[in-house]
């Protein structure tokens, strides 16, 4: 599509920091999240889950549950679509979703849904779930990525492997992505120092504080409604319709306020189950996951096992880089091995590069997207090796990164040439930042890392309507996961020339607007924002046309400035500027309502880069780590609402700190998740963190009218490596396995001294 190019004039509203429109409701407790909806006569649902990592379901006896007073419906797999085809690999994604939402022949992981019940109260539903008797034939299981690839590993599902996997690999390896250019072996031969190392990361969870929740109604007439906490309600509509054999348009889905997603709510889990129960009971059904269910049965990230080899000259030039990235994605295909591979070396301008990713199945829940899926792990491995090369060659880590940094026109490690990008600018800002030159205290170490994410556009519809008083309403279809309603209103204010607080932005339901892709890929401010600008442009055009009609001049002779229609110049005529409210006041009589809309799949999202600096302190007697200072430098393209951009930077850094230091899925030998709660799945608490400093770099994205790049995801790409580099420096030993929990650090210190 044609894009407007970069606007370099000064903005009036964009770049200011007004209060968020959802703020008042959120501080008073009236904001309605997934579990806050109440439907008259509603029932409560509860799910029976497998206690086994891998088991054939021999028999399900629901009779005792059905006999319990207050129970209105019980569903199993038989109550879902039988028309969906089981296809191998990613082609069968809808079937995979059904299989994940409600197990078929086998339970594939600890926590896999087996049956569900709806009853008149939450307590009765829970009691009834305990009365459902399931007979299992326990099968051998595997939960570790390297073990799942070993010859003797149990096969999770036959026939899933696609064309890309080299012959001879275990059937649990279902996809492979192989890519590169140049001659890496020749490149390594040119190097003065080559380091090859092995790295692992454990699976982490998005850790949104609001458990997955919905209220669903479905009648025998095939019409239904869902209220749910989701990043993408059109996706919920599409998937639920398929799983329940409904016409998509007969299902109306409304996105509630969303209590955190971070990629984890791009999925569908409880909604189809609630719909199936509702259809059977003929009443609305509320389903709210417990925290343990969220951990056991929604999507964590992939765990990884990675080998990275990089060659460097004494002057810091990288001569070649190679990586092998194995991702464990649970009992279904889809671990983002291609993104891990493609992002790994993207910050660097490399003549010789080769990367290979493997998607490996195991008896764990199906992995889901988490903030730049696949990229943070790659950065951890690659940026750790670069750090070690800098250490051994005595080079400054930022200078080396600057020397090798990708920039406009260089060929990306994943193939194409870069458009305008801002990596060099983030490195220069980082180098100039007082943090980088501040002295370190005894026992502290400093680490830096770069990070990269693609960002995404995606299918987008926006509708905008003027009111008679000159105020405007915007309907967007991308759930607000980071303050986007404020950003949308700011961009509309900029185009229309009316104050920010005269614009109300609403997240429309699926019946009120055209299709919108999920709020993912940091796409909302970019894609919905672009559509808001185009919708506002359409309104401005119509406003000018109405003014021209009133003045009886040519529409082309009217310009729009700061909320007023004006003659374009002396030749156009001498008329008093018409304020927007003067035009809208009579719009019914001058041609009808004035609305704007725009729908497209904008394709100029613009990749983004960040550089983080971290100081960490390690207690060498206990292995405890404290992050003492943190600075995020990231390219936002153009920060529409700078405070919310900072919030994204800080949130990504904090999640990265958790991933680096303490968060991990811990499986027992029995294949069961050991830490399905916030007590032992340790996300950072307030007393764990320092203030997180931010620097917003603005290198405009040529693919957006105002230069916007997505900011939500890139912020979690550098932290794992930056912290690992800081901890390794402080401890005096290279940390290659995440999380760097105290036992791991102490073991590494012991191994070094022993």
């Amino acid at each position: 599509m044609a894009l407007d190019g970069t606007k370099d004039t000064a903005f009036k509203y964009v770049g200011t920091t007004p209060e968020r429109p959802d703020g008042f409701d959120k501080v008073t407790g009236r904001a309605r999240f997934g579990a806050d909806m109440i439907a008259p006569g509603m029932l409560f649902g509860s799910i029976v889950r497998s206690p086994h990592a891998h088991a054939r379901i021999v028999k399900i006896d629901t009779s005792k549950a059905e006999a319990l007073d207050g129970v209105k419906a019980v569903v199993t797999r038989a109550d879902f679509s039988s028309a969906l085809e089981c296809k191998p690999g990613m082609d069968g994604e809808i079937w995979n979703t059904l299989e994940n939402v409600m197990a078929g022949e086998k339970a594939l992981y600890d926590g896999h849904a087996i049956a569900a019940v709806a009853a008149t109260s939450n307590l009765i539903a829970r009691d009834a779930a305990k009365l459902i008797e399931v007979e299992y034939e326990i099968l051998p299981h595997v939960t570790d990525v390297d073990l799942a690839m070993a010859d003797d590993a149990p096969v999770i599902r036959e026939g899933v492997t696609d064309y890309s996997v080299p012959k001879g690999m275990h059937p649990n390896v279902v996809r492979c992505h192989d890519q590169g250019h140049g001659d890496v072996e020749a490149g390594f031969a040119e190097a003065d120092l080559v380091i090859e190392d092995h790295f692992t990361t454990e699976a982490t969870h998005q850790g949104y504080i609001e458990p997955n929740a919905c209220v669903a109604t479905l009648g025998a007439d095939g019409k239904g409604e869902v209220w749910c906490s989701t990043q993408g309600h059109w996706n919920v509509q599409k998937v639920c319709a398929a799983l329940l054999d409904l016409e998509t348009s007969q299902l109306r889905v409304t996105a509630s306020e969303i209590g955190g997603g971070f990629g984890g709510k791009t999925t569908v889990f409880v909604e189809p189950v609630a719909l199936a129960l509702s259809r059977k009971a003929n009443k609305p059904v509320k389903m709210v996951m417990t925290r343990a269910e969220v951990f056991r049965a929604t999507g964590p990230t992939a765990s990884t096992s990675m080998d990275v080899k990089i060659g460097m000259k004494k002057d810091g030039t990288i001569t070649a880089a190679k990586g092998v990235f194995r991702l464990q994605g649970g009992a279904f295909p889809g671990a983002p091995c291609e993104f891990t591979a493609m992002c790994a070396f993207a910050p660097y301008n490399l003549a010789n590069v080769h990367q290979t990713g493997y998607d490996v199945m195991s008896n764990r829940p199906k992995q889901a997207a988490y903030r730049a899926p696949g990229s943070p792990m790659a950065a951890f491995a690659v940026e750790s090796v670069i750090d070690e090369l800098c250490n051994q060659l005595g080079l400054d880590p930022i200078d080396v990164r600057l020397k090798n940094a990708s920039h406009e026109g260089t060929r990306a490690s994943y193939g194409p040439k870069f458009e305008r990008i801002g990596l060099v600018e983030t490195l220069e800002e980082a180098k100039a930042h007082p943090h980088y030159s501040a002295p370190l205290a005894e026992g502290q170490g400093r680490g830096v890392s770069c990070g990269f994410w693609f960002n995404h556009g995606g299918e987008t519809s926006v509708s905008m309507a003027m009111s008679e008083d000159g105020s405007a309403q915007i309907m967007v279809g991308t759930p607000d996961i980071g303050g986007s309603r404020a950003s949308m209103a700011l961009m509309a204010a900029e185009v229309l020339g009316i104050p920010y607080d005269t614009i109300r932005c609403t997240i429309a339901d699926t019946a009120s607007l055209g299709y919108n892709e999920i709020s993912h890929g940091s796409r909302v401010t970019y894609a919905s924002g672009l559509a808001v600008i185009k919708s506002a442009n359409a309104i401005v055009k119509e406003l000018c046309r109405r003014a021209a009609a009133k003045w009886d001049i040519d529409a082309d002779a009217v310009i729009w400035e700061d909320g007023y229609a004006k003659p374009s110049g002396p030749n156009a005529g001498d008329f008093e500027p018409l304020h927007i409210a003067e035009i809208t006041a009579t719009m019914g009589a001058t041609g009808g309502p004035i609305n704007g809309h725009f729908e497209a799949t904008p394709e100029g999202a613009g990749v983004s880069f960040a550089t983080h600096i971290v100081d960490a302190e390690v207690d060498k007697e206990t292995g405890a780590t404290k992050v003492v200072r943190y600075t995020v430098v990231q390219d936002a393209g153009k920060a529409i609402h700078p405070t919310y951009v900072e919030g994204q930077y800080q949130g990504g850094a904090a999640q990265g700190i958790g991933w680096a230091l303490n968060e991990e899925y811990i499986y027992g030998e029995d294949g069961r998740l050991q830490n399905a709660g916030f007590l032992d799945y340790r996300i950072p608490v307030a007393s764990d963190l320092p203030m997180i400093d931010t620097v917003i770099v603005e290198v405009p994205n040529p693919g957006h009218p105002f230069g916007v790049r997505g900011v939500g995801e890139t912020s979690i790409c550098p932290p794992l490596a930056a912290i690992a580099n800081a901890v390794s420096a402080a401890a005096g030993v290279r940390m290659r396995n995440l999380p760097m929990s105290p036992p791991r650090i102490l073991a590494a210190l012991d191994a070094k001294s022993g």
Partner: protein
Amino acid sequence: MRYLTPASFEDAVAMATGSDGVIRFLAGGTDVLVQMRADIVTPDTLIDVKKIDGVHDISRADDGSWTIGVASTGAEMTEHDGLGKDWPGVVEAMDLIGSTQVQGRATLTGNLCNASPAADSVPAMIAAGATVSVTGPDGTRTVAVEDIATGPGKTSLAQGELISSVNLPARGAGGGDAYLRFIPRTEMDIAVVGCAVNLRVDGDTITEARVSLGAVAPTALLVTDAATALIGSTLDDAALDALAAAASAACNPIDDKRGTIEFRTKIAGVLAKRAAKIAYDRARAQQ
């Protein structure tokens, strides 16, 4: 589930002995409610002791000994004027449990009766030489804290018995105690290792000591070898090393999601040294 609110310990005992099925006493509830929520335990009878007279009181007797009511919360202990001056280690240990919110509910008695090997207040109470009064069908008896837990989740309390108060001895001159635990975060974790040291000095010399470890064995341990390493010393490096060695030697931990055997064994020694230094400084300041 029945929910009962006795007005006296005698009533509580009668209710417990008169009930069939699973019985739980409810003080702060920060463990019982979590277990109910997770379907680990669903009691048939829940006996809430908070309406019994005097259970919220914290009082110092004329001889300097302390009695702490079974429903006194961590927050109430921390806010108390005198308790923390006499027994800072016990109060700190209680204060480490959970969040500010949990402090508003959690109790010493609940922490003890939950019988987790990792309970923070239990090593502190053991080091302090605390006892509990146990009321049952046959009246009230006094039991040393270290004799209550018999294994993870198990206590020596008989059916119908419940703890009716926690008793701390008089502090006396030259005494000091301290409790430290190791957790991966700064808050909100269960101890990977806990260590309490309580000692008395005469001048610079340690004359009495009790050392207790948590989370390194099925129950909190009273480590007499560790105390022996301290007594008679001025907490010199040799004494500290002997203390650490004795603490590590006493460990019989497991590998689990919170830590490894090696890690726990080593950290026990590290914490013992650190806690001993704090207790020593406090004791000398109390002379």
